[in-house]
């Protein structure tokens, strides 16, 4: 069987042209779209790509607001046989220079032929030196569909000719480091994932997916966009910018459209539980939900409890709680729990776990922690745990999680060396620590110094580099890491730095400057900035700042001060 993205989409359009497949919240109202509507919109973009000689196999970057044009453009690029990649949108607080820099590094590595964007981005383009790069074509969303026919009847969709092992799309995570690592996924990998995942979810004809997740993120793109649209599951979609200001709109949408499936990062459980007023839940009925899947950041029992307690009065069933372990490199899901059976919670000894040794069921009188199971691997994925020398470990021993599947990435796009280093004997090294107990996977930590905030991956190096640009900050003497915030259900970023002697009388200004610079040049807001004396920061033998050790020291000092 051959897998082809365009073929799958066009089959749905042929079979069910008038099926209302998408409801999208735009300016306060839901727009209803059929397969035919999406196809027509996609053809507008495909024609534009043909007209500008963008070829099959070319990378096309999409920078568009979370709206219909983003969806049309995405499928238009697919139908043209080109490779779409969505770049996070420029938010008002990010400064343009930083965004440009990130964009440039993306262009240098991914070498896109075209950019599809919106009129408001026109001024930005002028700064990009497009003539010096591969980027030859810029298409504006308001200039498509002019002067040509309305339907796609005469288009020969080049996308139909793409082979199943060829790259279908690229996924990037945010920040300088993330944008330099485009995860390239083949047609075959995507369909192997979707086939296996929809079986794990036991998808049925009554299912309706409701999502506010951004489409540049794997969870949003795969679970909250491609799965529903390619498999005929009605999708209700809203922008993350709308959701974050009005989280009740998610609950109202589930109630109104009888949503059955929803994916949320852990912080969203806390966010929804804490930030929705009763009056916004009047007549809301959440009893249709059969799986709310917690995914893409460390999962906490307390977040599940908060969520259930808040929404049980509105019909939410406890059996709807679900979890998944997923990553873009495996297209999406590695595991899934909570579909036909409840999630398993595993209470283990805290000290053994913290030392990354093993997960031992706790004995009475010892300190413990409740681990949330991510469930069993979905049918096409194998999971093992290895030690630092690559040997497989036994049940309940903690080590690095490695995976093998028929839906792995083709590679990090144009980064062969990094791709090669990510595998060991055919197994992909996830960089996550965890263990297996009774065939279920538990995630206990991370090997990489990665901060995850609200499901978004943040590389500490990016933040440290930004902070080092502040006058007074000692270059090379900055450390950034995440500390879990129980109330918020996600991590807060802490920055610790030494400053130059002449700024010691002006600490507050340096702190303020760091806060401002980080806010404007990254996607995060800093809570804690600590200025420390020389000798506070722990360095490795090679003189580098040891993030994990400094984090441990900070936590110990903070606790002892309380």
């Amino acid at each position, binding site marked *: 069987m051959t897998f082809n993205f365009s073929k799958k989409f066009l089959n749905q359009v042929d079979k069910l042209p008038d099926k209302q497949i998408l409801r999208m919240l735009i300016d306060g109202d839901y727009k209803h779209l059929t397969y035919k509507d999406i196809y027509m919109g996609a053809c507008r973009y495909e024609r534009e790509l043909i007209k500008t000689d963008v070829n099959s196999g070319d990378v096309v970057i999409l920078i568009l607001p979370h709206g219909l044009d983003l969806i049309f453009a995405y499928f238009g690029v697919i139908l043209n046989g080109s490779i779409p990649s969505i770049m996070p949108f420029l938010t*008002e*607080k990010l400064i343009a220079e930083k965004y440009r820099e990130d964009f440039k590094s993306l262009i240098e590595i991914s070498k896109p032929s075209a950019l599809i964007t919106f009129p408001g981005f026109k001024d930005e383009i002028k700064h990009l030196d497009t003539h010096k790069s591969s980027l030859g074509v810029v298409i504006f969303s308001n200039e498509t569909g002019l002067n040509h026919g309305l339907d796609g009847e005469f288009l020969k969709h080049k996308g139909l000719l793409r082979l199943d092992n060829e790259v279908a799309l690229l996924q990037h995570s945010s920040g300088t480091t993330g944008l330099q690592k485009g995860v390239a996924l083949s047609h075959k990998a995507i369909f192997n994932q979707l086939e296996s995942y929809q079986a794990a979810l036991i998808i049925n004809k009554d299912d309706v997916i409701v999502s506010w997740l951004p489409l540049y993120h794997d969870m949003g793109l795969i679970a909250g966009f491609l799965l529903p649209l390619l498999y005929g599951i009605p999708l209700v979609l809203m922008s993350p910018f709308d959701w*974050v*200001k009005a989280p009740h709109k998610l609950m109202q949408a589930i109630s109104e459209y009888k949503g059955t499936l929803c994916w949320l990062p852990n912080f969203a459980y806390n966010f929804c539980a804490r*930030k929705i007023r009763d009056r916004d839940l009047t007549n809301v009925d959440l009893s249709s939900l059969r799986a709310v899947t917690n995914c893409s950041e460390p999962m906490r029992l307390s977040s599940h409890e908060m969520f259930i307690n808040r929404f049980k009065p509105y019909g939410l069933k406890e059996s709807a709680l679900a979890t998944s372990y997923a990553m873009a490199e495996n297209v999406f899901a590695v595991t899934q729990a909570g579909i036909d059976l409840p999630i398993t919670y595993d209470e283990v000894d805290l000290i053994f776990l913290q030392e990354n040794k093993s997960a031992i069921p706790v004995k009475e009188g010892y300190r413990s922690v409740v681990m949330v199971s991510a469930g069993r691997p979905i049918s096409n994925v194998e999971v093992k745990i290895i030690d630092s020398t690559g040997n497989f470990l036994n049940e309940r021993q903690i080590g690095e999680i490695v995976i093998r599947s028929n839906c792995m990435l083709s590679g990090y796009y144009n980064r062969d060396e990094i791709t090669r280093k990510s595998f060991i004997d055919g197994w992909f090294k996830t960089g996550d620590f965890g263990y297996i107990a009774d065939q279920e996977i538990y995630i206990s930590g991370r090997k990489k110094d990665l901060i995850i905030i609200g499901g978004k991956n943040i590389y500490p190096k990016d933040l440290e580099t930004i902070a080092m640009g502040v006058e007074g900050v000692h270059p090379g003497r900055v450390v950034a890491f995440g500390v879990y915030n129980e109330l918020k259900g996600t991590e807060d970023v802490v920055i610790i730095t030494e400053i130059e002697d002449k700024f010691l009388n002006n600490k507050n200004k340096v702190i303020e400057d760091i806060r401002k610079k980080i*806010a*404007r040049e990254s996607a995060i*807001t800093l809570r804690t900035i600590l200025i420390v004396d020389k000798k506070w920061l722990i360095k490795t033998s090679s003189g580098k700042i040891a993030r994990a050790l400094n984090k441990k020291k900070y936590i110990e000092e903070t606790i002892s001060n309380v």
Partner: protein
Amino acid sequence: MERIEESLMEKREIISTLQSRIAEDILNIPEKVITPDESLISSGLIDSFSLVDLSMLIEDVFEVRIDDTELNSDVFDSLDQLANLIISRAK
């Protein structure tokens, strides 16, 4: 004349309440002094995850509703502008 003074007082009080409550409850930086014309949203001082907190705080303290569609820097971006909005709604 008296009324102008009264409303100036009222505005100063609103700003002062906002200053302390935002620093303590939203930013978690009690020592931070937010000046009345400092930009709140466009600077990223109040991030997108905290905008709901701000509207809930305003409703709790001043009994004034700010709609989610108004939570952007075009509607208000400083304590001064926010205080004006609160005064105009309270009447």
